[in-house]
């Protein structure tokens, strides 16, 4: 199928926070609690439409376990967007966000759009991290934030699509280089679309 852009996404976060479930909910619109834990990386893809342009999301669902980090670090290269996920019922997954962010900053393109997701918000009765804390962390680090549930599908579409919207806007604004974005057969939509070498102008992180 033809598309105007292809965005590479990467989903990161501690093991068991629900990265694979989020991906499956987004690509297949179902919650499958008995799938296997992730070793290395798994892939998913879906077409979305932004500004009437078909955009293909190629999503890398990575393994969360600490000891796989040296491998997973090699997956960041070229990602346009990242979903950084924690589990609102397990505080330690929230506490580890800083180290995930550090990995992302070190190994990904500086202009990568990062969406922070507090997953499993259907389990409100077991909540261990408040919404405000999530918001606060996102604000401090210049991330977009949402609470979501892979189980009920709440905010799952929004998380993936809003991220794409932000990336798309960066392209329109010319603040993005071609990293993680491939121009598809549909042609180049904006005057500055897919322009190379503009990263430096953008500087720092983005919001």
């Amino acid at each position: 199928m033809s598309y105007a852009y292809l965005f590479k996404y990467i989903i990161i976060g501690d093991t068991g926070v629900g990265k694979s479930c989020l991906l499956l909910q987004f690509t297949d619109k179902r919650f499958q609690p008995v799938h296997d834990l992730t070793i290395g990386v798994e892939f998913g893809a879906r077409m979305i439409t932004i500004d009437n342009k078909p955009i293909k999301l190629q999503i890398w669902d990575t393994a969360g376990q600490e000891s796989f980090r040296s491998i997973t670090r090699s997956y960041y290269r070229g990602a346009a967007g990242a979903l950084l996920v924690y589990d609102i019922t397990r505080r330690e997954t929230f506490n580890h966000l800083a180290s995930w962010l550090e990995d992302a900053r070190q190994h990904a393109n500086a202009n990568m759009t990062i969406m922070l997701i507090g997953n499993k918000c259907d389990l409100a009765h077991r909540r261990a991290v408040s919404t405000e804390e999530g918001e606060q962390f996102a604000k401090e680090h210049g991330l977009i934030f949402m609470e979501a549930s892979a189980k009920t599908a709440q905010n799952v579409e929004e998380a993936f699509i809003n991220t794409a919207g932000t990336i798309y806007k960066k392209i329109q604004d010319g603040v993005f280089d071609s990293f993680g974005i491939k121009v598809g057969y549909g042609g180049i939509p904006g005057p500055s679309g897919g322009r190379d070498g503009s990263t430096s102008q953008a500087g720092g992180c983005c919001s």
Partner: protein
Amino acid sequence: MHESDIHDLSDDADYAVASKQGSSSMTRADDSKRSSYSDLEDAEIVYLKDNVTIHPTQYAAERISGRLKLLKQGSSLFMTWMPYTGQSSNARLSGRDKNLYTIRALSFSDIQSIRRHTPTIGWQYVIVVSSVCAGLAFPPLYFYSGGVREFLATIKQHVLIVRSSEDANLFLVNNFQDPLQKTLSSLALPGSLANRTPSSSSSPSYGNLEDKYTSADGHLSSMQQNNKQRQKSHDPARDISIQVLEKFSLVTRFARETTSQLFRESLVDGHGPNEKRRTNWASKEHQSQEMTSNDVEIVPKKVPVPSDPLEFDKLSLVWGQPRQRPLGLQEWSTFLDSEGRIVDPNALKKRIFYGGVEHNLRKKVWTFLLGYYSYDSTYAEREYAVLVKKSEYETIKNQWQSISPEQAKRFTKFKERKGLIDKDVVRTDRSLPFYEGDDNPNVRLMHDILLTYSFYNFDLGYCQGMSDLLSPILFIMKDESEAFWCFVSLLERLGPNFNRDQSGMHSQLFALSKLVELLDSPLHNYFKQNDCLNYFFCFRWILIQFKREFEYEKTLRLWEVLWTHYPSEHLHLYVCIAILKRHRAEIMGEQMDFDTLLKFINELSGQIDLDPILRDAEALCVCAGENGAASIPPGTPPSLPIQDSSIYYQDDSLL
């Protein structure tokens, strides 16, 4: 370019000889041969055998059956092999294929040697090596209706044939020189290997390959530790050349360039020497004009990628040995003495390597393969061991079971470990009936075994991937304590895969890159140029022994084959290479970068045909020989660790 190629070939004495003898028996369809063939019509048939079959591809099902004859004309003896018409096991075998393999009239004056192969299971076959065309071998002729003995006896009546003093299965025809020397010189190995061709004084090493495995297996670890000395004193060219010729039995028309390929001919500069040579050989050897021109045309155009040994993939090699049916209960009992000892563990391993084990026998056999029982234990000893081990297991299990909630509060490491295991056992093979459904008792068992293991080996603890390794073991053993101890045995070897610093994985990935460099330098160079040399795309394959790449039953088969350590402890690395080589045309042709390659490899899951891969892996392993073994650093998993202390040392700041 062209000039240098000619020069290249004119350097090759055999090329010169061969081109003078253009009408040799190898060019079976050319004019002179046709006449000699028709001459043969009045020859006397001294031997005739039906159902003599060749397997032109690695698929055992693909075969061409025909009639083998020995014809006597005057004082000359000829061999013919004609495929039956209109009968083919497989539609993919075209008439052209049949035509290609037909042996119209091979004079025994053009035969250098015949080797008889007698696999323990399967049909006897012979490989005929020509003396005219650079020592090329014809494809193996399988005697489906027997008659090898008679075949050789008949030959003996009519031509001078002697049994090699080095190898009782090798029969030398019209040749009283050192056969090895001749084979080697006529091989004209390219590049560095050729220079290392042994001097005439070295004694031939014609040993049966299967025997080689056995001895290699037995001495593996000590050999690895002596790598350095070995490399100095041992010349690999000798063994490899014979192995390549005979083990692979390259189909005549491809033999030359494949041999070159296997010897890492410098192919980096693709469209040059390799293709040119291919063309030359094509025109020299091909039986029909039509085929020749086809090949010459197709090859350079089809693959625009440099270093086009891509054609390698399509070679009709008889790779490795045909797979056999799995070991069954009846045959199993023949391996045991009256008290239950395994009389010949190597024979057993070899048998399992080539066929695997029937499902209902796995519980018995795996305990030996994994090293939980020793091969020389008796029934009685094992019965006793089960009881001892069971109580030992219970003791360790009790260590964590007795941790009270109060104590757990102050035992973060335990809580974290347990939490991880809780989360992971419900995400391991839950779609299998054995593990499916809520509150499945087997999931509970998996949990208990993993947690007990993390106490048994507290330094290593628990790491993701372990549940993937345990799942099939529990599925086969069914018993908690036995599954635990088998798992322990497995992790004796694979434990380093889970070292927190990934050292075990890195050493395997490193060895893999060395082996690819040895066996497929163009692919190696491609990975190098594309920043793929870390081989991370093979990470999952190695970490959990291809568990996610095959359906469950195939994984069981693969594992028992790997656990024999029969041709090599590191066969799994050759399995990686076999898979990569099957897809090298796509990988290089589509110019995959790291991302694309990773995704491509991931998506091979469920698409890999196990048996042919195993045969390729065996072939690659044999081909790499001691150079291969030398590429793998000592102590690389699944070798047993060199020194025991602190190999599971974990950084305490982590889990």
